[in-house]
């Protein structure tokens, strides 16, 4: 299956910003090279505009382009979307709420609003064409938009797709991320992140990244000890960080700890009745959060093709999480053991009595997660009222 190299993907993800509010022709008169030369035919009418912001602050600006392949890339299409460049884009990043995305699964409301504002341009370009492959590329907010484009392309069976994102935020819930990963294929999802970049860590639960299993490709440069706004820059951080590395080089540079081995060991110890879990402990809560994320990913993988068919978009997020963990526990004993260990940890955190070896039921998981969220909300309210 055709794939762009990390350098090619990073170059187009970076150069798309240079369109600013001008045309491709105007950009070329300034000597700008987009990285598409000799590969994808880029014209003024390849560009599309998108809407960002919320309510009275909405603003329309260049958001990317769609281009038809040439030479070795014949019958392929490149869709590149840009990220946060101007103040208004941050309002889109903040519009945190969920709406059904292109495939019907819940996605970030702000990202979807921007994607909807140009999706008709993508449909118009592709009407009457029959590409073999569509490359979806983007940085930051543009990475989330690329994920929505890949979701739309594969749901409507327009072509096979590849997804390349750099420093992208989480775009949708676990079912969105899981079904997108299945349709695109985990091998065709290339998610690159810098360890000091905060954007790939937001929004928090219930949002997830595709690919659902695996931690993405961490740049082998820099340290994650301190967050830095500069780490998020496409040209200065990601393009330089990728350098001339291949996807295999990036995959080989991953650290074993990145794929959740610590979480698994913690759950194994918990399953064997390990104590040392203190009620209200922030360390315990942090582990619960990490373990929940890891288990949801694992459960989505275990559920495989049943993921998209067994749960409906009408369910609440809590319903979906409970369904996923309970169903995966029925399918695989190992998941059931880990889910029970996690449930015990949550009970300990809440200072409640730990239940014995009962089966993991959807109702119980739902009740426990809801109790955890309610308790945390109450703690947060109490903490805030002290400063009120």
């Amino acid at each position, binding site marked *: 299956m055709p794939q762009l190299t990390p350098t090619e993907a990073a170059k187009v993800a970076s150069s798309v910003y*240079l369109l600013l509010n001008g045309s491709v022709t105007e950009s070329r008169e300034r000597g*700008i090279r987009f990285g598409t030369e000799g590969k994808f035919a880029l014209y003024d009418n390849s560009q599309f505009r998108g809407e960002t912001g919320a*309510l009275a602050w909405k603003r329309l600006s260049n958001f990317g382009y769609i281009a038809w392949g040439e030479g070795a890339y014949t019958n392929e299409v490149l869709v590149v979307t840009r*990220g946060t460049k101007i103040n208004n884009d941050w309002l889109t990043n903040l519009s945190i709420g969920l709406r059904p995305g292109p495939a019907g699964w819940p996605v970030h409301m702000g990202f979807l609003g921007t994607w909807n504002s140009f999706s008709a341009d993508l449909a118009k370009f592709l009407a009457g064409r029959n590409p073999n492959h569509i490359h979806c590329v983007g940085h930051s907010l543009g990475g989330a938009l690329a994920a929505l484009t890949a979701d739309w392309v594969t749901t409507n069976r327009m072509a096979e797709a590849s997804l390349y994102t750099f420093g992208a935020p989480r775009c949708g819930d676990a079912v969105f991320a899981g079904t997108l990963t299945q349709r695109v294929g985990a091998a065709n999802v290339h998610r690159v992140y810098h360890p000091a970049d905060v954007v790939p860590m937001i929004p928090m639960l219930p949002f997830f990244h595709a690919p659902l299993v695996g931690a993405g490709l961490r740049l082998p440069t820099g340290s994650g000890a301190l967050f830095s706004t500069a780490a*998020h*820059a496409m040209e200065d951080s990601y393009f330089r960080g990728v350098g001339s590395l291949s996807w295999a080089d990036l995959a080989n540079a991953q650290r074993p700890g990145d794929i959740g081995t610590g979480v698994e060991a913690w759950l194994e110890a918990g399953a064997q009745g390990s104590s040392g879990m203190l009620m209200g402990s922030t360390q315990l809560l942090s582990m619960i959060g990490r373990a929940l994320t890891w288990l949801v990913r694992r459960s989505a993988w275990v559920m495989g093709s049943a993921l998209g068919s067994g749960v409906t978009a009408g369910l609440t997020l809590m319903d979906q999480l409970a369904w996923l963990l309970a169903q995966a526990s029925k399918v695989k004993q190992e998941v059931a053991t880990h889910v029970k260990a996690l449930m015990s940890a949550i009970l300990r955190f809440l200072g409640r009595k730990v239940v014995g070896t009962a089966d993991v039921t959807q109702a119980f998981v739902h009740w426990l997660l809801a109790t955890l969220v309610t308790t945390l909300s109450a703690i947060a309210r109490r903490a805030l009222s002290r400063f009120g």
Partner: protein
Amino acid sequence: MHRSPNTAPVARPRRMRRLAVGLGLVLAAAGLLLATQGSAMAKMVMFSAVSGKVLHNGKPVAGAAVEREFFWAWKSETGRDSTQTDAGGEFRFALVERSSLMGSLLPHEPIVRQTILIKHEGKTYKAWMYDKRNYRPDGEIGRPIVMTCKLESELHHTGDVYGICDLQ
């Protein structure tokens, strides 16, 4: 769509409040982030200092107008200054910097569109066309910008810089 003032949706103030709270939370988190990094609101360099010489067929061009402009995408701000070449054909521009609290707290892609034009005897020459992708001093080419501009030269690339000038 036209909407009369008395039919404005009632949910708007609540939504705006939610957005404002969201923005406040992000800024608070970002402020904390910045505090932990120990950096104050950083200066952002829009255009590093530039010096150059204008030549025509090997001879210095005196009295040519040199115009510099930048466009900062984050704030949609444009800045301009200009000078004239001296008897030796030389010109100089000082460093231009700005600061932005929001810009230093919120992750965004730095883009500063930079242009230098030389105007001489009714003709305009593109001396420097470049998009700066960071806010560092000398962040354009990694060293001070010193250029020699031969008016008879063709437009060409030096790295990602486009124009008639050669860089030292």
